[in-house]
C-alpha cells in the first residue's frame, strides 16, 4: 500500500495504532517486571544526546562567563584575598572548637555515625514529559551507581536513582508524584512520610493530630525507608492544618531549589536499613 493510500485511510491507521498502544500498555501493566527493556535502552541512547547537548550549552556558557569574569577579576581578587585572611583566622578558631567538641563527643559516646561515601555527578538533562519530575545525571553503573541510591545536594535531599545506564542515570526528584521518603520533624521527632505532589511543594502525611508540628520546623530523613540516610534535610514546614481525619495536613517547602541544581552527590554507602534487609534476604 502506497503512502498516499495510507493517508486516504487515516481512520483505519488510527484504529490500528490505538489498538497497538492498548496492547502495549496491557502487556506492561500485567507483567510485574522491574525496568522495561525498551525504557532502559531508549533512556541509555537518549541520555547520550542529552550529554552532548548539555556539553554544548555548558561550553557556550563557560566561554561567556569567562569573558565576563575577566572584566572584574582584579577587584574580585583583592576582595577574595581579604576574605581568605579573615577565613584563616576563623578556621583556627573553628579548629579549636572542633577539637573541644570531639573530646565531648567521645566523652558522651556519641561518635557512632558512619561517614557517607559519595560521588559527584553533573546534571545533563531533565524529564522528557512535564508530568514527571526527573533529572538525568552523568554517572552510571560504570561508576557504581545502582537503583535506589540516594541523591543529595548541599541543601538536602534531591531524590533517588531509578534507572541507571552505563554512563548516566535517571533520578526521580523528591517533588515527583511517585516519590516518597520517611521523615521526622527535627524539633519534636514526630514521624511521617513526605510525598511529592508534582509541583514545588511536598506533603507530609500520616502525622497524627496529637503530634507537635509547627510552621518553620525542619523536616529530616528518618532512615527507615532503606534509601535515604538518616538526618538529611528534606524541607521546612510551611503549612499545618487540621484535616478533620486522624492526621494533620502538612505542606513542606523543600530545602533544595530544584531549578538551580547543577551538580549533585550520589550516596554510595548503603543505609543500615538496606544492609539489614540484604542480610535477611541472604
Amino acid at each position, binding site marked *: 500500500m502506497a503512502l498516499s493510500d495510507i493517508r486516504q485511510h*487515516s481512520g483505519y*491507521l*488510527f484504529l490500528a495504532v490505538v489498538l497497538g498502544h492498548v496492547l502495549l*500498555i496491557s502487556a506492561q501493566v500485567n507483567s510485574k517486571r522491574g525496568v522495561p527493556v525498551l*525504557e532502559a535502552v531508549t533512556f541509555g541512547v537518549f541520555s547520550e544526546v542529552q550529554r552532548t547537548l548539555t556539553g554544548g550549552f555548558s561550553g557556550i556558557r563557560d566561554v561567556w562567563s569567562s569573558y565576563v569574569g575577566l572584566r572584574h577579576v582584579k577587584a574580585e581578587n583583592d576582595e577574595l584575598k581579604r576574605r581568605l585572611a579573615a577565613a584563616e583566622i576563623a578556621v583556627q578558631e573553628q579548629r579549636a572548637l572542633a577539637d573541644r567538641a570531639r573530646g565531648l563527643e567521645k566523652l558522651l559516646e556519641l561518635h557512632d555515625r558512619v561517614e557517607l561515601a559519595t560521588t559527584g555527578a553533573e546534571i545533563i538533562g*531533565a*524529564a522528557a514529559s*512535564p508530568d514527571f519530575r526527573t533529572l538525568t545525571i552523568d554517572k552510571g553503573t560504570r561508576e557504581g551507581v545502582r537503583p535506589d541510591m540516594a541523591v543529595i545536594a548541599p541543601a538536602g535531599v534531591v531524590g533517588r536513582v531509578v534507572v541507571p545506564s552505563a554512563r548516566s542515570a535517571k533520578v526521580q526528584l523528591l517533588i515527583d508524584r511517585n516519590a516518597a521518603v520517611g521523615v521526622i520533624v527535627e524539633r519534636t521527632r514526630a514521624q511521617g512520610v513526605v510525598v511529592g505532589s508534582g*509541583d*514545588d511543594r511536598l506533603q507530609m502525611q500520616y502525622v497524627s493530630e496529637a503530634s507537635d508540628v509547627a510552621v518553620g520546623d525542619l523536616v529530616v530523613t528518618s532512615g527507615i525507608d532503606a534509601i535515604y540516610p538518616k538526618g538529611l534535610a528534606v524541607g521546612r514546614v510551611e503549612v499545618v492544618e487540621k484535616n478533620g481525619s486522624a492526621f494533620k495536613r502538612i505542606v513542606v517547602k523543600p530545602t533544595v531549589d530544584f531549578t538551580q541544581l547543577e551538580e549533585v552527590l550520589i550516596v554510595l554507602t548503603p543505609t543500615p536499613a538496606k544492609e539489614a534487609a540484604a542480610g535477611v534476604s541472604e
Partner: protein
Amino acid sequence: MRAAGVILGVVAALALQTTLARYVVRGTVAIDLVLVAVVYVALTSGPATGLLAGTFAGLVQDALSTPVIGIGGLAKTIVGFLAGVIGTQFIVSQPLPRFVVFFGASALHAVIFMGLYTLLDLRHFDTPYRVVAGQSTANALVGVIAFQVVELLPGAVERRRAAKTRLRR
C-alpha cells in the same frame, strides 16, 4: 523527505524539552513542547501524519520518563489525529482558532493521560484542574507564537533582501 522533517522536528522539540525543562521544573505551567510540535505537525500535514507524529513522539517520551510505555503515546496519537482532522475540516489560520485548537488538544491530552493512569491505578492526581488549565494555556501560547514565527519569518527575510537590493541601486 517530509517524514524525515517531521521526525527531526519532534526530536528537536524533545531535545529542547529535556534541556530546558529543568530550568522550569517549578511546576504548574510546565510546557509540553513535544505536544506543541505534534499539534503543529497535525494542523499543517493532516490526520495521518499527525497521528504518526503523535505515536512516535509519545512513545519516545514515554520510554524516557514514564514507567508504562504507551500511555503518553496513545494520548498523543489521539490528539495528533483529532488535531489533523480539525485542520482539514476547518479553517485554522488565525491566532484565535489556533489558540483554541492548541488549548483543546492540551486539555484532551491531559484528560486521556491522567484518565488512563487513574484507570489503571498507577497514579493519582489530586484536583489537577488548575495545573491542566495552566499547562494548556502555556502550550497554546507557545503553539500560536510558533505558527506566527514560521509564517512571518520567510516574508520578513524576503522584505529585508528586497530593501537591500533597492538601496544598492
